């Protein structure tokens, strides 16, 4: 298995438009059967990248291979990929059966074969017996599954999905995340999914590529991307974080001492050798790594402990948070632990915040 080529391989893929470069030397591999997400803000070039994979746009440079075969110059209707469009693009003039059977008809599959294969795939996506319905008779989630079935019936090597959940309401979207993931597992097909919604990417993906300004900032598992971001952009875009501007005052091995703009002191661990005394940095601190403790209960030698007042309580069930203002007037978001011990926290309470030096990310301030 190891020497079989990855399902999708891009090498220095570049796309130039008249006035700007949408995709800039992007390289990545997607192994067979994995769920790969490209996560990025709108305008980052992820749609252009996806359309190049589908064949609707021609790369300006670079190579793109599917199962080891270069796809450069291959028209979209000859590529072993299928795409689920943002608005699904189900054909409104056809019923569900004809929609799903469209690709098979183009391949010249016999009528009876088409019927049985369409029935089977609709069965697998959990929609048996809808072949005679019209598109507008289905709910949003059902359309979603039909769109996937329409692609999967062709048994593509790679399935591309262009933010297909964007149009759904929140509840259904949450449900479809889980469902998409299990469909992917059931079909064991390679999915390439683009989205600007980090939660979609984190929940479903085996690997995530975070894209910004036409380049990949980081490729990694959801865990890596979330917990060990490579760049300030990734740290800021994926997940929630307190962003603190601070200057390095001293470096001792991997331990940095920093002073914040408001005058506080921080201590953290880093593997970035370029950070030295005098360096302006941005420190990313996730709300859930900060601990709230009772005033006076901290050990004397503890680092990154500061006194503060609860400014506000933002109750949101499992995602509840408080804002803490420290002595210097700096604000910090802190996640409330879900153990019930925090129910007593109230606005105006004096608290101590504490976090471990290994749990913050520090990046050199971007040069303007």
């Amino acid at each position, binding site marked *: 298995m190891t020497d079989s080529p990855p399902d999708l391989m891009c090498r220095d893929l570049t796309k130039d438009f008249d006035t700007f470069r949408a995709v800039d030397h992007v390289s990545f591999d997607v192994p067979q059967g994995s769920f790969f997400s490209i996560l990025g803000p709108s305008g980052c070039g992820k749609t252009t990248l996806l359309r190049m994979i589908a*064949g*609707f746009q021609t790369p300006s440079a670079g190579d793109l291979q599917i199962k080891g075969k270069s796809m450069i110059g291959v028209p979209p209707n000859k590529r072993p990929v299928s*795409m689920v*469009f943002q*608005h699904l693009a189900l054909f409104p*003039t056809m019923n569900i059966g004809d929609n799903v059977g*469209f690709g098979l008809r183009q391949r010249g599959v016999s009528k009876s074969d088409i019927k049985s294969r369409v029935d089977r795939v609709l069965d697998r996506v959990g929609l048996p017996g809808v072949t005679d319905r019209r598109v507008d008779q289905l709910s949003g989630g059902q359309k979603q599954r039909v769109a996937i079935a329409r692609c999967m019936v*062709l048994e593509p090597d790679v399935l591309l999905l262009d933010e297909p959940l964007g149009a759904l309401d929140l509840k259904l979207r949450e449900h479809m995340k889980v469902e998409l993931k299990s469909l992917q597992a059931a079909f064991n097909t390679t999915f390439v999914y683009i989205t600007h919604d980090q939660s979609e990417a984190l929940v479903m993906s085996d690997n995530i590529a975070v894209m910004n300004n036409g380049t990949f900032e980081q490729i990694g598992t959801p865990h890596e991307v979330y917990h060990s971001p490579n760049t300030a952009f990734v740290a800021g875009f994926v997940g929630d974080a307190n962003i603190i501007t601070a200057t390095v005052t001293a470096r001792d091995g991997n331990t940095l001492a920093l002073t914040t703009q408001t005058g506080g002191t921080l201590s953290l661990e880093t593997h970035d050798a370029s950070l030295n005394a005098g360096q302006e940095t941005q420190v990313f601190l996730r709300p859930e790594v900060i601990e709230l403790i009772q005033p006076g209960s901290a050990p004397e030698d503890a680092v990154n402990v500061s006194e503060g007042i609860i400014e506000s309580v933002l109750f949101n069930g499992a995602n509840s948070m408080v804002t803490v203002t420290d002595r210097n007037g700096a604000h910090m978001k802190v996640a409330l632990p879900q153990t019930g011990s925090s129910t007593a926290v109230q606005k105006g309470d004096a608290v101590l915040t504490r976090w471990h030096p290994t749990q913050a990310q520090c990046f050199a301030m971007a040069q303007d």
Partner: protein
Amino acid sequence: MSDTSRLGFYLLLAPILLWLVVLIILPHIGLFVVSISEKTGPRTYETGFGNYAAFFGEPLYWRTFARTAIMSILATVLTLILGFPIAYYIAKLTRGRTKTTLFLMCMIPFWVSELVRTFGWMILLRETGVVSNVLQYLGLVSGPVELLYNDAAIMVGLVYTSILFMVVPLVTTLDSLDDSLIEAGYDLGGSSTAILREIVIPHAKPGIVSGCIVVFMLSLGNYLTPILLGGKDSLWFTGMIYTQFITRFNWELGSAFGFLLLILSSLVVFLGLKLSGQSLSETMGRA
């Protein structure tokens, strides 16, 4: 409904009813009444269907009738074949300024009257005309060629006169076709022809049908183009109606012809809608 709103309703309804009755229904009743009176002598008439019998009894009449219908259908088909790529190009392959410019260019011929347009074609096609001279200049023909006074010239004139009425509804319907549907077709392995046949045309059907209805009606009722561009064998039914009314003083037969033309156009439109599986309200409503 309150009294005032009911009054408002009738006031709004009045113009359309008036228009319908005075301009559409009454003239047709009049036409029909005249068509069923037979002349028995100077200023004496009796009621009967003799004029309709005359139509079916004289091969020239019903042959011209059939010829007009067939040529109109042919003109409609040609207009569709020619207009569809134009409309597709305007709707799908152009944006902004170019789109408006192309659309305007389709309309430019309609800034002058039909008579002027037809004369323009006569200047181009006649034996001493532009096309003939260009062909001679290029050495493609040895002597002057007459391109006027035949059915092909009529066809050119009819298509030219009516193409706008095909392009406009087509552009409107094709505009509303989501590009991603076409892309989805390609993505699922469809060839260009398959996508045209299975996705674009079904979507554009209301536009196609309404464009065809309008073009067919315009061609069927055209008078100037067939008379001016057509040759000595190029008979057109409207010309025949004119002849009956004006040169033969035979209003009765002319009215019968007019009524038959009305029935023919209604019938062809009805058949067209049936064959394409569209309803008139749907077609006219959407295009």
